[in-house]
């Protein structure tokens, strides 16, 4: 055995041991398949403040599931609704899918301590009219059936409860920690999914549970609607899983049949499957080790590896001279493909990086298996059917056209017009296949919510809280002018002057006049306690600054406050709906920034589409230079013409069919470049006449098209585009490949 062969065999063994070791370590750390699309996107590259604000807004709904039960056609009694809520909550608990702990309740201490300052306007007006009215209300409550406890000693006027009433969502009544009832009789229940529920394995369980609950609700004569990101993520994951297993097994079946017929022996098939298996395992393990998880989309694209790695095995199996015959070709092919994918690693896009890692590791491993392992085993060449196919395919592309120029002109025209029709589409929504039933459910559920909130918002930034309040005020006035309902801290925060005035009003009405003391004594309170109350009132004269007030505010308001650091104070102004994003984007309030995460992600996708296209161009130029140096001007250009024609054909076909041109089309083109270069290299090295090359490349193209033709049927727009682009690209590569071969007269069979 030559020394080189020994080294390769040893390297292959080393690879196996390495993979086993990685598998061991990763198994101990646990396997993670992710399906949520956002993990594939780069962290927001805008200023950290925008990112912080986006996170704050996302937190509230990322793990959140909202169950909505609209009122039935025939009115239900409150008790029936309460029973529905109880049963649903019980089901949620026993499902094990949701966080068991109720959300932490709001700590009212700070606001309670400042009840003399935070008096609401209605109460102040009431006091101005008749100070004794509040005392009479308290007295009636003490002698009646009080619905909320009266703290006679500390808050005889019930100021804290009065303030809170202003902050409760209008007409929403809590039935339990998670269940709420609106004034119109709609029941809604909030649930936080356990973090583990985002792993693909739990997706199915969540969807089944939802379906069961809907059936149960129907049985009770009610409708159950659901809204929330987790459902979309779960739906996407289940769909991707189903597609991977369906397309994966169909294309595998196709490859198996093809190879069995060609080689009339199971051994070459086994060798090919070993290559694919080791390649895929290496890609998966390395990606998992580097990133800590593998995304479902990476896995879908990872199937594309079958298309490339199968080439190496096929060239080896079809060649009569074994590895000596094809070694140079498959090495060049592997290096060029790896170089092409490696360019993705330079992008700051985790999704692209995963695919680069998966493909790079997979291709090297597949190549090493062909070069290191296969020469050690005896494998038969093509059988009867294979030989017949070889004869039929050899010399393909040799007949000369009588009028090449008109044909070339028509082709060029078709290509150009197709490319001109390309429509770039960077909308983030193409990344996700949204089940229409789910989307309808979600929209219906949202309609029933007592308060609407758009995903877009304004971020307000100022040097100090006073300036922040001024900016919020002017922003709020502009929004009111446009008739856009919104929520801003400045609406609810009583200024420090207002707070001090409230304290003075209470002082005059109840303490200086002695009205409270008289009332207390009349009820039978001890003198010492009456004096203590007056003393406590005098001592509680401090006002709450905007930051302190906002820190201690109840949830919907607290979420608007981002805090102050050394450079600035920040807050959020949310909108109920966005009637016209254009107007709002142009709303020029200094210190207020319009934030639109969906739009931001879409423009990021556009940036990365451009970036990937440039990477593709650079890869083509670098590889072009390398091949020109390697094969000379004529040979180099011949080889390079194959990927060029394939890419142009794929682009033109996409344009003519009206497929969106996305980042993932570029990704597919990268695979097309990798595969078509392989074809070009082999035709160049071995000429058109060598039957083994023709057979290997035809088999390779067929297997690849089998694999990707399947992806064209995916329900996820992005996977479909990927599949169709590859289908047209590879078909064109197969047709164009003979161009790279030497013409008949100089061929060297």
């Amino acid at each position: 055995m030559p020394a080189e062969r020994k080294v390769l065999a040893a390297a292959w063994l080393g690879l196996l041991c390495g993979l086993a070791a990685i598998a061991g370590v990763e198994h101990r750390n646990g396997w993670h398949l992710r399906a949520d699309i956002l993990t594939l996107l780069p962290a927001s590259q805008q200023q950290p403040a925008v990112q912080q604000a986006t996170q704050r807004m996302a937190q509230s709904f990322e793990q959140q599931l909202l169950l909505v039960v609209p009122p039935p056609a025939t009115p239900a009694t409150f008790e029936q609704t309460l029973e529905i809520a109880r049963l649903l909550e019980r089901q949620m608990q026993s499902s094990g899918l949701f966080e068991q702990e109720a959300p932490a309740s709001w700590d009212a201490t700070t606001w309670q301590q400042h009840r003399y300052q935070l008096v609401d306007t209605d109460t102040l007006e009431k006091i101005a009219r008749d100070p004794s009215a509040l005392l009479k209300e308290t007295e009636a409550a003490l002698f009646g059936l009080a619905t909320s406890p009266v703290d006679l000693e500390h808050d005889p006027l019930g100021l804290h409860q009065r303030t809170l009433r202003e902050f409760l969502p209008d007409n929403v009544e809590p039935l339990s920690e998670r269940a709420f009832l609106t004034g119109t009789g709609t029941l809604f229940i909030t649930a936080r999914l356990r973090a583990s529920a985002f792993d693909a394995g739990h997706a199915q369980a969540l969807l089944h549970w939802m379906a069961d609950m809907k059936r149960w609700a129907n049985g009770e004569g009610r409708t159950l609607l659901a809204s929330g990101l987790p459902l979309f993520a779960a739906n996407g994951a289940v769909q991707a899983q189903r597609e991977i297993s369906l397309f994966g097994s169909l294309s595998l079946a196709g490859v198996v049949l093809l190879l069995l017929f060609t080689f009339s022996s199971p051994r070459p098939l086994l060798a090919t499957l070993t290559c694919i298996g080791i390649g895929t395992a290496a890609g998966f393990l390395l990606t998992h080790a580097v990133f800590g998880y593998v995304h479902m989309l990476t896995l879908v694209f990872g199937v594309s590896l079958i298309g490339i790695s199968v080439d190496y095995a096929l060239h080896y199996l079809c060649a009569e001279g074994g590895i000596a015959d094809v070694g140079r070709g498959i090495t060049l092919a592997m290096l060029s493909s790896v170089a092409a994918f490696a360019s993705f690693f330079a992008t700051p896009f985790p999704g692209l990086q995963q695919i680069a890692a998966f493909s790079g590791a997979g291709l090297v491993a597949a190549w090493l298996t062909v070069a290191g392992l296969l020469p050690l085993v005896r494998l038969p060449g093509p059988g009867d059917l294979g030989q017949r196919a070889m004869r039929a395919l050899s010399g393909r592309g040799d007949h000369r056209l009588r009028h090449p120029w008109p044909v070339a002109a028509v082709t060029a025209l078709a290509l150009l017009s197709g490319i001109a029709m390309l429509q770039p589409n960077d909308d983030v929504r193409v990344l996700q296949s949204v089940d229409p039933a789910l989307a309808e459910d979600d929209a219906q559920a949202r309609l029933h919510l007592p308060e609407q909130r758009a995903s877009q918002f304004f971020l307000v930034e100022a040097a100090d809280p006073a300036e922040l309040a001024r900016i919020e005020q002017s922003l709020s006035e502009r929004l009111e002018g446009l008739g856009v309902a919104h929520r801003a801290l400045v609406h609810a925060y009583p200024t420090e002057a207002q707070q001090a005035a409230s304290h003075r009003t209470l002082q005059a009405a109840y303490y200086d006049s002695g009205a409270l003391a008289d009332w207390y004594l009349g009820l039978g309170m001890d003198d010492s306690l009456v004096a203590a109350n007056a003393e406590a009132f005098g001592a509680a004269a401090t006002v709450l600054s905007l930051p302190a007030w906002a820190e201690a505010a109840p949830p919907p308001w607290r979420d608007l406050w981002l805090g102050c650091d050394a450079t600035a104070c920040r807050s959020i102004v949310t909108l109920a709906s966005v009637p016209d994003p254009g107007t709002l984007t142009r709303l020029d309030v200094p210190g207020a920034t319009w934030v639109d995460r969906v739009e931001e992600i879409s423009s990021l996708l556009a940036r990365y589409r451009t970036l990937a296209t440039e990477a593709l161009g650079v890869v083509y130029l670098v590889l072009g230079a390398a091949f020109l140096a390697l094969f000379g001007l004529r040979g180099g250009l011949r080889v390079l013409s194959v990927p060029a024609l394939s890419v142009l054909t794929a682009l033109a076909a996409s344009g003519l069919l009206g497929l969106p041109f996305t980042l993932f089309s570029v990704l597919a083109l990268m695979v097309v470049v990798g595969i078509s270069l392989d074809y070009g290299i082999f035709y160049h090295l071995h000429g058109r006449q060598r039957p083994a090359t023709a057979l290997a490349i035809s088999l390779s193209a067929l297997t690849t098209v089998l694999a990707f033709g399947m992806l064209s049927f995916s329900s996820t727009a992005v996977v479909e585009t990927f599949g169709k682009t590859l289908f047209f690209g590879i078909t064109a590569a197969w047709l164009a490949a003979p161009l790279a071969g030497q013409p008949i007269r100089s061929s060297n069979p």
Partner: protein
Amino acid sequence: MKRWRLVAFFVALQALPAYACEQRGAVLLQQISERVQKHRRWTAPFSQRNHIRVLKAPLVSTGRVEVDAESGVVWLIEKPIASRMEVGPQGLTVDGEALRSTQLVAALLRALISGELGVLEQTFEVSGCSDSPRWTADLTPRSAAMQQRITRLALAGSDHVELLTIHQPGGNRLEIELQAPQPLADAG
């Protein structure tokens, strides 16, 4: 030996009330509801004693309750400060002014006064006894939000709810004593 017997006796004594009568949850509420007399419409006088920790004496008021199985409960306080609270299916109305977001409180009050206790199980942990001629039930709120209003409810009665004690945070408690219900003729 004698000492041991004494210890055993006291241990047994401790355990006695436990197996004498200790029932829980929905079953108990169901039993009580079955024992309470059913009238479609009835009225009963009541007295209230509000024990406020910081007052020397409890605040006493008296009045009359009117219950209609369909339209709900009217809680009329006559002395010392007249007030009228309607406990209807849409929530509470006090002296003609509807209080928003009070459907749950209203449902609980209706259940407590009429003795139809089933609905309480959702909101409270229930224990008590329904073996002897009189029954008792002890209710503790399940949610922290409810615990901020009521720490515990104690109910006692025979063929009607006789005594309702509402324990509130801060050590205050409201005792309500209901007299025997008098059936009312159907209105219209």
